[in-house]
């Protein structure tokens, strides 16, 4: 093969990896269609979209940079509170609120990232838990600002960009959230397929070699942590804008554990895991969780154990794959 051919083929191979698969087109078109075709489910779909954004932000950390965080709700909740307070005190225009929340959460992420970089996986897990606990306590103690355990109410939600009302209009609210999700997802996809994104994968795969080829590990990790925190903050702001109350449940450990679980269920490292996982989680919660709350908690725990035992990176798909393989082997026996 001539060298030009090789180069062309190599370029094409790299291009294939970042190209949009036809399934992705189908998915997003279906998502857009659901605005019009599934009117009774808009509330649930809005929740799924918001949690999907939250989970995708965690995927940037876990799936691409290899940072384990059990306290990502710190940025989610912080973004929610900032958005609410901003709307109450300045303007209720939602997109402005998103930007402010994103910047604020990003800054918090930037500052706290310096703490998270040190040490092993275990230390990181603990530090992230600690950061989230500290944020929870702050929110709890500053009840004059945050409403404490009762929560923050009375947040105005003006029409988006001045002309698209979403307050108490589930269809519009869903459309708004979906557009934000898509926009940020698109950006995330560009990031993970960029040279920066590949350097993150290198850091995740082999941090020693990464620094030995000239990658400044810490700087890159700080950058992605900041972006992930900003995304989480925007997701929190979206939730604040579409529900009547911002409370401590936005920032507690359960929230951090739930989003991690969603991501694990859907699979890490391919960006759609957060969307798949949040959809499965919330739909299952709706069906099972209404029987008895203990019932839901038990099965969530069970799912975690099973996934930890059998799944690798692809969450639910790894388990399906294993079952399919096992069945295939049985059929292959003479």
């Amino acid at each position, binding site marked *: 093969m001539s060298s030009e051919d090789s180069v062309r083929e190599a370029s094409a191979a*790299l291009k294939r990896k970042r190209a949009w698969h036809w399934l992705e087109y189908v998915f997003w078109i279906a998502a857009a269609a659901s605005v019009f075709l599934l009117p009774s489910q808009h509330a649930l779909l809005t929740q799924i979209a918001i949690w999907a954004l939250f989970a995708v932000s965690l995927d940037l950390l876990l799936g691409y940079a290899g940072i384990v965080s059990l306290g990502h709700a710190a940025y989610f909740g912080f973004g929610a509170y900032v958005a609410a307070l901003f709307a109450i005190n300045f303007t209720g225009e939602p997109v402005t609120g998103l930007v402010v929340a994103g910047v604020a959460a990003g800054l918090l992420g930037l500052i706290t990232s310096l703490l998270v970089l040190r040490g092993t996986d275990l230390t990181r897990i603990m530090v992230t838990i600690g950061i989230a606990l500290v944020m929870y306590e702050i929110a709890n103690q500053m009840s004059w600002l945050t409403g404490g355990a009762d929560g923050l109410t009375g947040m105005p939600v003006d029409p988006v960009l001045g002309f698209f009302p979403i307050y108490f209009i589930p269809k519009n609210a869903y459309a708004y959230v979906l557009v934000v999700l898509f926009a940020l997802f698109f950006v995330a996809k560009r990031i993970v397929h960029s040279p920066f*994104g*590949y350097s993150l994968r290198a850091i995740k795969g082999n941090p*020693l070699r990464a620094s030995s*080829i*000239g990658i400044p590990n810490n700087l890159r990790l700080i950058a992605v942590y900041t972006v992930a925190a900003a995304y989480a903050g925007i997701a929190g702001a979206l939730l604040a804008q579409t529900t009547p109350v911002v409370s401590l449940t936005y920032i507690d450990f359960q929230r951090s554990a739930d989003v991690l679980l969603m991501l694990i269920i859907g699979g890490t490292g391919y960006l759609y895991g957060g969307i798949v996982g949040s959809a499965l989680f919330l739909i299952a919660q709706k069906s099972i969780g209404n029987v008895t709350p203990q019932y839901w908690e038990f099965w969530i725990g069970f799912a975690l154990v099973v996934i930890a035992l059998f799944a690798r990176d692809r969450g639910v798909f790894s388990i399906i794959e294993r079952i399919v393989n096992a069945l295939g082997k049985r059929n292959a026996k003479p």
Partner: protein
Amino acid sequence: MIALETLGLEKRFGGIVPTNDVNLRVREGARHALIGPNGAGKTTLINLLTGVLKPSRGQVKLAGNDITRLKPHQRVARGIARTFQINQLFGELTPLEAIALVIGEREKLGTRFWRAFGGDEKIVTEAVALARQFGLADVLEERTSSLPYGKQRQLEIALAIAGKPRVLLLDEPAAGVPETERHEILETVAALPKDVTVLLIEHDMDIVFGFADRITVLVDGKLFVEGEPKEIENDPRVRAVYLGERTDD
């Protein structure tokens, strides 16, 4: 011109001194070998040169500039690269991606977050050419973790060369490579560009004497003796130190 040198380099771990007052000078363009019995402190010295370890005392200079305070990735930017005795690769990336990654970082394009990776044709061309040079043209798009050991070893060196370093530290390049594939590694090492200064750590004396134009012997963390291959080969003190080691080749 001295490409790489250390001045009074020392490393202490509590009571252990794996590197003791080492004054090493590597001339530009040299093929300099560092040998010594097991436990002599060769890998520790490499780690000190690359910045993975901080010295307790002394200096490291690259082309006359003091790099002792610099972190590993900063030293790479100054032109020093290394390979590892045990392969340190990016298992999930393909050789093409890994090499292109190194080239991109070298060209200071690693912070680009919007443009596509692999979209720069110059980088891809260079990556493909380099892969071909290291016998990896036929496995360009396979996951590194699925490659046979010999190919992985080639990639290990390719990644270091892709950074166009001024000084290359090769840590036992033939380690673990089966007999049948050794000659490929040797050819690769012999074919390294002449303007790259190479410091080679090796146990295998055939490789050392076939490749080096200068040899430094390290024993117990200290510089034992240094000279041209002929001198070292005939030095009775070196033979004494290696007695019992030569039989395993």
